[in-house]
């Protein structure tokens, strides 16, 4: 990630104001931004859990039992609940971003934001239902 700025000889040093490490805690907007960015930790954590589950499935029924027992630990569950809230926050912010990232115009008019975001939510519901059916319907 080499940045390649074009240097100017004898350029005067820029004056930059020092920004506090906690700049994002000063305003609700920036705090929400950091919460959204931190959802990445929840996503990574979930992938680790998923890989653990798949690995357990590959080892045998006892391992699968043990995975399920772990998921029932109150502390793990509390942690998972927080992770779930973060993941939900990621989904909602992500879907709402679509109309801002690519506004759609029809007849010179900009389509309302909810109309661009709506297909995302529709896809979310359908995919979630299909996954739940695949996992729970196999009994």
């Amino acid at each position, binding site marked *: 990630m080499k940045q390649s700025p074009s240097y100017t000889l004898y350029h005067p040093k820029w004056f930059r104001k020092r920004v506090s490490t906690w700049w994002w805690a000063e305003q609700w907007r920036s705090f929400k931004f950091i919460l959204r*960015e931190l959802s990445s930790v929840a996503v990574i954590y979930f*992938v680790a859990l998923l890989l653990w589950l*798949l*690995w357990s499935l*590959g080892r045998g029924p006892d391992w*699968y039992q043990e995975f399920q027992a772990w998921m029932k630990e109150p502390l793990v569950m509390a942690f*998972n609940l927080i992770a779930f809230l973060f993941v939900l926050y990621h989904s909602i912010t992500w879907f709402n971003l679509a109309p801002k990232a690519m506004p759609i115009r029809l007849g010179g008019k900009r389509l309302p934001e909810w109309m661009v975001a709506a297909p995302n939510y529709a896809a979310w519901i359908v*995919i979630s239902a299909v996954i739940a059916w695949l996992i729970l319907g196999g009994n």
Partner: protein
Amino acid sequence: MSKRSNEPFLWSLFSAGGMIAALMVPVLLFLFCLAIPLGWVEAPSYSSLLKLAQHPLARLALFAICSLSLFHGAHRFRFTLYDGLQIKHLNELIAIFCYGGAVFGTALAGYILWDI
């Protein structure tokens, strides 16, 4: 002469992963970490879950979910450290750590799904 940046490539992985994570992670997390352990729904039996996971399409989908979500998370976490904590002088080290982790996780997912 400016060097070609690989930022666009990393960004495409980030956005693909963001979409796949947004669509699929909440339901999986909800089922396996809340609904099933709390007994709201019946836990799928070992054999049915194994059969599902062994299906080639399921393996492919799971591999995509794991890998792309990791690249998404890595990219976002990198900029959380970069902007949030302003650790700009360690930019390269952080990038190697984040994307390296995603590459490692992808390889691990490939191995686990191949072996299942």
